[in-house]
């Protein structure tokens, strides 16, 4: 396994824009570590990878990693990524989004990327809150929880991101948490190897804007909660609906084969009599 110090020099941009903007105890860095370890295992070179991010705390990851990197507008990362992938299919395109980024402002792009089944890897860092703008509720904030714009408790129902993208046609859907960091590596690694639209949801603590407001304790307490509530998909499915409280399944939730967008597109180029790239 790649050592931290090696990873810093191999994949980070230590001489560029550090220190990073993340708060102490933030989960985003753990997800970044998992991503780097996953990429190391795929054997891809840095030039073969494009890392696209949206706007938010998690969106800053593209600044720190030494790939071809693109920090886009809020919610639009997948749409930018679609253009890159279609224009240069040989590139491996990885997209990092926050939960608000991916499912609120970018919800439309997310569901359509799933439907198209384009070969892009989306990693959604779900911290259940809008971190960067100071803790407003997001589409994944649990009902009754507090946020800076939900002082009296959130009255909206949260999305289950994995179920959402499954319903929209993603061919690979997986979830892990920052407590289960090694599982996260392998889920990401598998998604990069998969030919189709893949979503990995990474549950990651935001102790500063979410944890504190909801009295969840510090980063360690929040990791403890992930440890307790995350069940392997097999164990989770054994629960009856009455038994399910805060538990959620982790692991590979969907993995199926379906024709990929560019492959279908190449067929049409042939029909049109064009030269298939």
């Amino acid at each position, binding site marked *: 396994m790649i050592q931290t110090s090696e990873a810093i020099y191999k994949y980070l941009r230590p001489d560029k824009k550090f220190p990073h903007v993340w708060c102490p105890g933030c989960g985003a860095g753990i997800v970044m570590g998992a991503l780097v370890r996953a990429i190391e295992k795929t054997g891809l070179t840095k030039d073969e990878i494009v890392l696209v991010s949206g706007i938010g705390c998690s969106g800053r990851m593209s600044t720190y990693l030494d790939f071809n990197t693109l920090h886009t507008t809020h919610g639009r990362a997948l*749409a930018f990524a679609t253009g890159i992938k279609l224009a240069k299919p040989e590139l491996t395109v990885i997209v990092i989004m926050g939960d608000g980024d991916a499912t609120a402002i970018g919800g439309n792009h997310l569901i*359509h990327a799933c439907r198209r089944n384009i070969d892009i890897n989306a990693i959604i860092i779900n911290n259940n809150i809008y971190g960067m703008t100071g803790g407003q509720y997001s589409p994944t904030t649990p009902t009754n929880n507090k946020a800076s714009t939900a002082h009296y408790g959130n009255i909206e129902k949260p999305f289950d991101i994995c179920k959402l993208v499954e319903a929209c046609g993603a061919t690979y859907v997986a979830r892990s948490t920052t407590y289960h960091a090694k599982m996260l590596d392998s889920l990401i690694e598998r998604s990069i190897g998969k030919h189709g639209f893949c979503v990995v949801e990474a549950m990651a603590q935001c102790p500063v804007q979410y944890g504190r407001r909801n009295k969840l304790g510090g980063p360690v307490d929040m990791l403890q909660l992930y440890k307790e509530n995350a069940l392997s998909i097999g164990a989770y499915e054994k629960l009856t609906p009455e038994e399910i409280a805060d538990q959620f399944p982790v692991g590979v939730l969907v993995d199926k084969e379906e024709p990929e967008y560019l492959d279908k597109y190449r067929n049409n180029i042939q029909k049109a009599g064009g030269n298939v790239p």
Partner: protein
Amino acid sequence: MKKAKEVLLQGNEACAMGALAAGMRFFGGYPITPSTEIAEFLSVELLKVGGIFIQMEDEIASMAAIIGASLAGVKSMTATSGPGFSLMQENIGYASMAEVPCVVVNVMRGGPSTGMPTRPSQGDVMQSRWGTHGDHPSIVLCPQSVMECYTLTIRAFNLAEKYRTPVIVLMDGIVGHMWENIHIPENIEIIDKREPTVPPEWYEPYEDLPGGEIAPLVPFGEGYRYHVTGMVHDSQGFPTLVKDEVEQCLNKIIYKIKNNLHDIIEIEEYLVEDAEICIIAYGSVARSAKEAVKMARGEGFKVGLIRPITLWPFPRFHLEHASRKMKTLIVPEMNYGQVYGEVLKSSPHKAVKVTRVDGELITPEEIMKKIEEVAL
């Protein structure tokens, strides 16, 4: 431009064909009248040349996708009208800030909001200049004929590459839907991506080069790893708040256009030499204006026409220069006076307007009436 063959084309089609001739190989769009024919045409023709056509989920995504494609090294374009153009604004600003070449065609329709989908207008002159937030440059070209839909779309791609910036082709619905015979030129000037002259370790995508030269944008995946962001950035592309770097970043995008006005601005002048009255008109209205000039000359009025082909940057110095000799400037437009406002800036006491916002075109007679009014 040399030999040519003649074909009957619609403005929208000519625009799409011009884009193909310029080497555009990625189109992302969302249908909207009166620009739809551009997408429809390209959904057939792009595949024949191995290019990519994708109908995105909305205009925000379309604009994002063409920026992505351009960063991957492919010339890209989108086309839209009124409300769709509004949705694109955030990412047009992104392309401006991140200095990513691309072309946006806006076939204007009556507004605001859903307005008059099938009726022409010139209501987006200011949106094409200031639609996105912040101070930023813009290059906007305004064809008046089917031929110009072809040639100016090519020019838009050339300017986009040369200045690493989004370029807008602003057509009114009349020009987009008009049919004319045009000569497709065989030899056209095409500006392509420039190769980097330095090895990857030295490459700075936002470097200020001597003499105002613009650093080439190396496509992703070619060994030149760098960062692209819509945030104010340093010469390497990383977000910065350091005062000098902020100013350098913002000045750079403004001055690369400001310092090259002579190259970017194109106008057409018609009988202005001895004119006492000058009409300033663009797009389809310029054609009515030219007719009006002919009518007026027939009746002995000394009238000329200045047609901004480049609408932005606005040809202010040309107008200031010309207007010194003129008694009156007449600005007919299919809006309440958007270019009229610009003309007032260069000639405060001489400009009058002719406006029409009912979705009908401005006739030569209407302009003639105004000429008589101001001449007598």
